[in-house]
């Protein structure tokens, strides 16, 4: 225990840094929310492509396998430094982060959508078709509304990963929550206090979203009970 005594904690630096945290949280939330919206849409498109026969199905499969395998850090390095040079485009760190998070998570979400769509009894599709609904009509009015209910809790759980992964954008200088924290650490030289505080902030955001997932699950499955 003696080794603890040599360190005197100073939590006041955290309270002094609240405005920085606020600014950081705003950017983290912006990155997270936009990535969620884009990957929800792109994920559905990929899921539909993946289930299509022929070459489109193959492209969907390859998309999921490749884009799921990369880590966010590697994505960001590749997009922000590598691709930017080749394509001659200058992505800002926030955009690079959003693109990276979207590519990674759309691959995960595609698999969630696919599992949900495949869980719908094929008889439903056949019945809808025999009633004269078109392929698109069947999907939009019969299959998707049911699949959506099955997929939603898992999708929301995926949101928690997006929140956590977004911290990596700090490495290319987006002034998100993590970046603000790292700057405060170098200012005050208080790594323990700051990293503990930021861990708590991320934890709170994740727990709120996870709670939402649990509630949604209960609510959406009430009719099945």
């Amino acid at each position, binding site marked *: 225990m003696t080794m603890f005594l040599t360190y005197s904690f100073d939590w006041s630096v955290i309270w002094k840094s609240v405005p920085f945290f606020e600014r950081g949280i705003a950017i983290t939330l912006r990155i997270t929310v936009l990535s969620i919206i884009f990957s929800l849409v792109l994920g559905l498109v990929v899921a539909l492509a993946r289930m299509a026969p022929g070459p489109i199905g193959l492209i969907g499969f390859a998309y999921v396998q490749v884009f799921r395998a990369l880590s966010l850090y590697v994505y960001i*390095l590749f997009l922000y430094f*590598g691709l930017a040079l*080749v394509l001659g485009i200058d992505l800002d760190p926030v955009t690079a982060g959003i693109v990276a998070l979207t590519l990674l998570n759309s691959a995960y979400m595609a698999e969630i959508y696919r599992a949900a769509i495949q869980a719908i009894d094929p008889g439903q599709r056949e019945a809808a078709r025999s009633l004269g609904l078109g392929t698109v009509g069947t999907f939009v009015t019969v299959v998707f509304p049911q699949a959506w209910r099955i997929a939603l809790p898992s999708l929301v759980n995926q949101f928690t990963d997006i929140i956590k992964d977004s911290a990596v954008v700090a*490495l290319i200088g987006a002034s998100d929550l993590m970046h603000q924290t790292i700057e405060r650490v170098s200012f005050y030289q208080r790594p323990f206090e700051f990293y503990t505080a930021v861990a708590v902030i991320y934890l709170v955001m994740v727990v709120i979203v996870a709670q939402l997932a649990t509630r949604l699950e209960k609510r959406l499955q009430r009719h099945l009970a």
Partner: protein
Amino acid sequence: MIFLDYVPDWSVVTDRWRQFAEGAWVDVWVAALGFGLACAVGLANAILRTSGVSVFSVPSFLYVQVMRGVPLYVMILWVYFGIANVLGINFTSFQAMIIALTLTGSGYTTEIFRAGLGAIDRGQMEAARSIGLSRARTYAHVILPQAFRIVVPPLGNTFIGLFKGATLMSVIAVPDMVFLANELNVTLFTPFEVFTAVAVILVVLVFVFSILVYVLERRLRIAT
């Protein structure tokens, strides 16, 4: 075509394939060690959690929530700079990375082992106890071998997740393949070639690990 403006020079990578292989190997073994420790901690924690004694199960529950809720990047810096500062211990960057992976990983492995142990019928424990096996022996000979089959597929996915997370290790200067790529980028300014190489290595390794998990899963499946 915009692509035509840039002519990639892959020799930057191919001339150094050995260094890239060595860097990738660092990612693999650090991730594997972190995963192994995460499994040990997770199993112990899951046994505490399912013990039904709230003095154990409540802290164990909180532990899982915290470890799963904190980003790995935060965990790495917290261990390497924060804990080191408070305890006055200087972890090597390897040690800090392995500890961070163990902490984050054990949040996931605890839940997997808990589900695995929970899937074993209560009657098995009761039967084994009633024929005179001790609690420890019941776990070792009856419960764990059955739970093992259930936990392998999700554990495999956790390993792949940790392996991907391990690519962050260069942020505390562990010389893995990303560290190498960053260095080459700074000195030779070839971001496209080196980061493409890293991405390709990562995709291939994750693909290989997925196949291994799949094969293991099939072999362990009980014929029905």
